[in-house]
């Protein structure tokens, strides 16, 4: 992490995608206790542990092989998460990365459009899998506004760095906006009104994914 110089790049290499995943792993480990605390308030108190285990397994897996194509990379990430996480974030993040890889195909680098295609496919996969919409107090509440913000920056001529920065800020804002929401999906939905006042742990871990992306691509 940090040893790959990215200055005003317009494309993302496989090495940068792997760097993104490494940064995400580090952020998940750093925030593991907080994620689990959030989940203990409205869930089954394992989101931090599960994501830390899953991303550690992903990094172990990536360390052991050379993956040259985006679809192979993201399929490996997806299957490793599915096999190691255990909780609902396994199939949800698993579907996100699986669809991401399907959308990119065997690319060796992603331009802005390909990145957005992958992220959009990932969002569609999570929505299809979890049947959650914006406002249901889930990871969709961080992911969906992040993609909308990136799209908006790109449409207005902004570069990749500006896009991922806007994506990170929107993801964090979306995460924070889950606090007053009533959970309508996942275990927290069993709590109904009692879920109000707590941040959604899935939205929190999703915001970390965009923090990692922005950190890697903006230096």
């Amino acid at each position, binding site marked *: 992490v940090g040893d790959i110089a990215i200055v005003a790049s317009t494309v993302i290499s496989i090495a940068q995608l792997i760097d993104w995943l490494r940064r995400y792993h580090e952020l998940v480990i750093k925030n593991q206790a907080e994620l689990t605390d959030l989940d203990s308030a409205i869930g089954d108190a394992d989101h931090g542990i599960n994501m830390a285990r899953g991303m550690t397994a992903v990094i172990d897996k990536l360390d052991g092989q050379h993956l040259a194509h985006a679809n192979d990379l993201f399929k490996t990430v997806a299957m490793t998460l*599915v096999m190691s996480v*255990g909780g609902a974030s396994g199939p949800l993040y698993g579907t996100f990365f699986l669809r991401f890889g399907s959308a990119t195909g065997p690319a060796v680098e992603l331009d802005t459009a390909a990145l957005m295609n992958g992220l959009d496919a990932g969002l569609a996969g999570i929505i299809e899998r979890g049947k959650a919409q914006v406002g249901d107090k889930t990871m969709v509440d961080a992911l969906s506004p992040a993609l909308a913000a990136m799209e908006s920056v790109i449409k207005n001529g902004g570069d990749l760095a500006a896009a991922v920065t806007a994506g990170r800020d929107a993801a964090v804002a979306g995460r924070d906006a889950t606090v007053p929401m009533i959970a309508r999906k996942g275990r927290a939905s069993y709590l109904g009104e009692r879920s109000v006042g707590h941040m959604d742990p899935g939205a929190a871990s999703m915001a970390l994914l965009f923090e990692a992306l922005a950190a890697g691509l903006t230096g």
Partner: protein
Amino acid sequence: MVGIVVVSHSADLAHAAVDLALQMVPGSAPRIEVAAGTSDNRLGTDASRVAEAIVTADDGDGVAVIMDLGSAVLSAEMALELLPEPHETRLVPAAFAEGIFAAVIAAAAGADLDVVARDATEALQAKATQLDQDVPQVNVAPPPITRPAIVAEATVVNRAGIHARPAALIVAALASLEAQVMISTERSAAVAARSPTAVMSLGARPGDVLRIEADGAGAAAAVDRILALVCDGSPKPSKVRTGPDGSTAPACIPSESAQGASSAPPTECPILLSSLIQVFEFPTRNGQSRQPG
């Protein structure tokens, strides 16, 4: 035979639920695969293991997947995306224990995937009925037989009535036949005889008269097979058939043990029915009379 895949956070929970269901299967059991817990023995589910289980459980007749909750459902859905080749798979929105119970019984009885899935989904009904409460109905009732080729009636004599195991025997008896068969009692509307859960839902008790209606190819054989499940395994009682012209005759000569059974059926008796009352046969649509048996 339809295969069953059980997806649970807990391997202990899954295996115990399967054991409970297998108590009801006297003969050969369906393929049952458990995809439960994580590879390091924590609570959790793994979509890749669910996909492997579906592949293993499918012998060509399809697979019913019963899940506990939360990530089990998500993992089962994702598993469909991970299958190396298509398998006819039904993710069944059933209560876990009841669903496994009903699915295993139905599959063991030779029911097809539609029936297995429906039985599992509706399996909560028995509990709700016992508690005098309702569960949302997802049942799509089979079309009634408007003009059955054969109608037979028989009295239930075994002490426990038509509970799960006799119901499964009835369904199993029909497995290789194509006939449409409905069973009703004076208290309960007709249900499909191919569904163990539906047959159980009749709540038939000793003394109740089962009305068996059959139509289509093999209708006569279907009725005969059900009637052959007469108490105590003795040779089938002779049947004197009564036509629609109204002429009546003693329908059968119950065996001695069957006669005695109505008050005290032998506990080892595997059967359901005795005291066959009447078998009517009606002309088929092309005018030929069908002979039961």
